[in-house]
């Protein structure tokens, strides 16, 4: 579904991605892992069109999307939820969500998408008339993910959806992502919470210094010595107990 080949990109003249190749198959959850500042967010931004790909190719659903404007990529069905829980604080929860369906010029479809999002995040329905600036971190993250779902994309890219949230909320968010994927969404998820991400995902990539260092099935990465040493604190005991 998403096929990135030898992608090079960066900011200004600073090169961050040095030829990244990555594939996401339809219906899969793929985890993108890596330490701080290795270029995970940069990769997502290059795919969603927020920054310019310098070279390489990005194919989505059989179409080349590198160089397209971000709103066009959204219209093709590929949506990114950025890191940092960015919403529009002066707008209500429902206005935030409706904006996510800006590209959808169909009232019935928008209404259906809104109900679907409220189904995943019932608390947002209760708070739909409140300003998003008044929400807790977890609720804000729900607004961001919900906004991403509003255009009914076929694939969603989530950038650290569990960052800076309380453990119970993290679990909630992961459960919901699992549900969203089960309902047919293809997911590329960037995570610092490597253990959780690998439990959720089918396949994983580890990015280091702007290239893919390790890739493999989630099962394999979980037992990979390098991954365990660098990102899992050496042990993966009790993993089933956590979900």
């Amino acid at each position, binding site marked *: 579904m998403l096929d990135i080949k030898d992608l090079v990109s960066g900011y200004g003249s600073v090169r961050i991605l040095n030829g990244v190749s990555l594939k996401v198959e339809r219906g899969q959850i793929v985890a993108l892992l890596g330490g701080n500042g290795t270029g995970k967010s940069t990769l997502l931004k290059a795919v969603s069109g927020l920054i310019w790909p310098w070279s390489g190719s990005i194919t989505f659903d059989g179409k080349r999307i590198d160089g397209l404007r971000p709103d066009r990529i959204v219209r093709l069905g590929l949506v990114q939820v*950025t890191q940092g829980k960015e919403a529009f604080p002066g707008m209500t929860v429902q206005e935030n969500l409706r904006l996510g369906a800006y590209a959808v010029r169909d009232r019935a479809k928008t209404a259906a998408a809104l109900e679907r999002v409220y189904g995943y995040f019932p608390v947002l329905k209760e708070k739909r008339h409140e300003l998003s600036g008044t929400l807790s971190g977890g609720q804000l993250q729900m607004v961001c993910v919900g906004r991403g779902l509003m255009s009914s994309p076929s694939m969603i890219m989530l950038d650290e959806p569990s960052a800076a949230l309380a453990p119970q909320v993290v679990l909630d968010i992961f459960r919901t992502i699992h549900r969203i994927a089960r309902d047919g969404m293809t997911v590329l998820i960037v995570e610092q919470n490597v253990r959780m991400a690998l439990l959720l995902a089918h396949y994983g990539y580890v990015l280091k210094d702007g290239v893919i260092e390790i890739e493999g099935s989630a099962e394999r990465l979980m037992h990979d010595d390098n991954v365990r040493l660098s990102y899992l604190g050496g042990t993966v005991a009790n993993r089933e107990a956590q979900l």
Partner: protein
Amino acid sequence: MDYVIDLVIIGLSVGMVYALVALGISLIFSGLDIVHFAHGEIYMLGAFIGLMIFQKLALPYVPALLLAIVVTGLIGVLIERLFYRRLTRAGGGYTVAGMGMIISGFGMSIVLQNIAFLIWGAKPLPFPVPFGMPVEVGNLTLPMSYVWIVSAGLLIMVGLHLLLRRTMLGLAMRAVAHNKDIAYLSGINVPAMISLTFGVGCALGAAAGVLIGPINYVQVQMGLGVLIKAFAAAVVGGFGSLPGAVLGGLLVGVVESLGAGFISGTYKDVYAFILLVLVLMVKPSGILGVEARMKA
């Protein structure tokens, strides 16, 4: 007492004009992150266009006003598309590119003045609108032109409010003003929305120009004075805040009018700045301004 009320009414109507220009400047600032220094010339251009429609096409005043708003708005879209886009794309007022933007604004102001000079000449032109007899309210006599400015200004502001608060288009404009990346990722065509924001800002300037036309003359130089007052208004109200622009505009108008009536008309242009200094001493962010705006 009646004298005071007269002065306040005159102040409110002139203030309405400042408020409309300040609204345009604030809207453009919030959407494009640039301070548009050519906005006085947009106001001037709007006034001339309105006058031409009124005289050459012989349309009544109200359709002329509306048409001038639309035409100037479209000219604004064109200006943004052709001249400002490359600069705004490189980043707004908080970046190095923002400096280039300010200089382009000054350049644009000179260019527009010269274009207007070539077309309409240097002589002030009258904008003779038959507003009819003054209306009597109690023992007050209100000239219709002032009643007009205030009510038309209010209508336009209500329209802008409804556009920004009640429509998806307005929601998208606000989204772009707040965070362009997130707006993009919501599927909004950000460059188009920026053009639209700029166009609406210019349309507001044109409305102000056509409204002031009948009580002042229309002339090439008319932009500078109003630009300075509108900036004072925007800063008094809180730069970037739309309600602040309206409040600031009305305050500047009234203070100026009272000052001219009671102290001296010779220093008319000074009162706005005395007000500005006083407000900044008490609240540096302006009356309705937030302390520091987080812009993405």
